[in-house]
């Protein structure tokens, strides 16, 4: 998978993962504070935050594996800098990354417009929710409540990760720092 990757793309991937690992960890604490009060649903509406690096990395680098690897790396680094969820977070990263990656794979890694990015956010929401359902024992809750949780998470994935990721990447593109990457080349070719 990494054969076609340039080293600078991999290093970029890792730097993005580091920055967002910090952001992710900050929001875990935000979520935790809430969760004591209103239960696990506290995480749902901000869940998209935790998918955003997949969308940004895939949008910038545009190679198979970008969405998956960035999420796994971010999770690993998050664990190393002190997320007490510990090794489980890597598993979470793998599962979320696969969900986002699936959306890009569906389009044959050719399209990176807003709809595909939002689909990636949705994909990550679906796979991560399956994981939450099993590990969190959500079968103990009433189906309506579970459905609400999923709806919140899917919306958050599409808006925060999909739309938010695109806005953030486009702002970065304007700074000129991404000149050497696929996202800038594509824009140059098509105007």
């Amino acid at each position: 998978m990494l054969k076609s990757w340039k080293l600078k793309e991999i290093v970029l991937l890792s730097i993005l993962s580091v920055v967002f690992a910090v952001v992710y960890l900050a929001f875990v604490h935000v979520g935790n504070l809430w969760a004591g009060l209103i239960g696990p649903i506290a995480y749902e509406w901000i869940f998209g935050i935790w998918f955003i690096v997949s969308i940004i990395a895939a949008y910038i680098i545009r190679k198979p594996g970008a969405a998956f690897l960035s999420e796994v790396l971010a999770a690993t680094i998050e664990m190393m800098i002190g997320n007490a969820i510990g090794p489980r977070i890597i598993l979470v990263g793998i599962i979320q990354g696969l969900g986002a990656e699936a959306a890009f794979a569906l389009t044959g890694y050719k399209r990176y417009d807003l709809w595909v990015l939002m689909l990636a956010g949705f994909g990550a929401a679906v796979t991560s929710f399956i994981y939450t359902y099993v590990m969190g024992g959500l079968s103990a809750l009433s189906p309506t409540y579970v459905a609400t949780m999923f709806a919140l998470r899917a919306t958050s994935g599409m808006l925060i990760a999909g739309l938010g990721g695109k806005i953030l990447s486009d702002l970065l593109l304007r700074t000129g720092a991404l000149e050497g990457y696929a996202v800038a080349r594509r824009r140059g070719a098509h105007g």
Partner: protein
Amino acid sequence: MTFHEMNPTIKFLTVTCLMFGLAFMYNPWTPLGVFFGTLALQFIFSDVSWKRWGLFMIPFLLTAVGTLWTTLVFGKEASGEVMFKLFGNDVTEENVMLAVTLSLRVLAFTALSLLFTLTTDPKRFVYSLMQQGKLSPKIAYSVFVGFRFFPILKNELMQLYETHALRGVPLETRRDRIRHAPKLLIPLLAGAIRQAERIAFSMEARGFTGEGRSTYEVIPVTRNDFLLAALLVALFGVSVWAGVR
């Protein structure tokens, strides 16, 4: 024989498998057993600072409480005698059992996680993943670069704060700084991306190809690793037995 010396990849696999197993256990005794068993093993085979352990545990106690009452209030309709009403929801004996189980599960997960996190050196973990887990050196060394990046990012962040303060953004108090932080994300990222490019070039200039390589620090696999893994698995086995019985 301690968890600090245990091979990180084996430790990672064992702990993850146990957590997966726990997810399929719907009785309160199994997570309870795993929780206290993990503490006992940690007490015997490590010298973790219990004060740190306690601090890490606090947010998860909150989560456990949140899980407990969510499962009581929004629990599914379950059989059994109605014990009491909570916000209009009939709570049966089964509901209570489930709620206790799920919140104990949160605690058991956390105990296992902390056993791993507090006894594992990140660098050794990545080396071990490369040596035993066949992780690509390209990725492994990018993670190291990422790690080296923390002090650089911190410096850049300070610089950004100073330049913004020079231009008249009020940044005296801590609250000002936190409120201003989102506005720094783009310049910080842009700077980081430029640095990343330079680092990649200099790695290549020094002959880094990303192919298999020899390393100075060898992470061994010994008999003790399997012994500790077996202890953890045995703990899980006993807890399952105690719960199902």
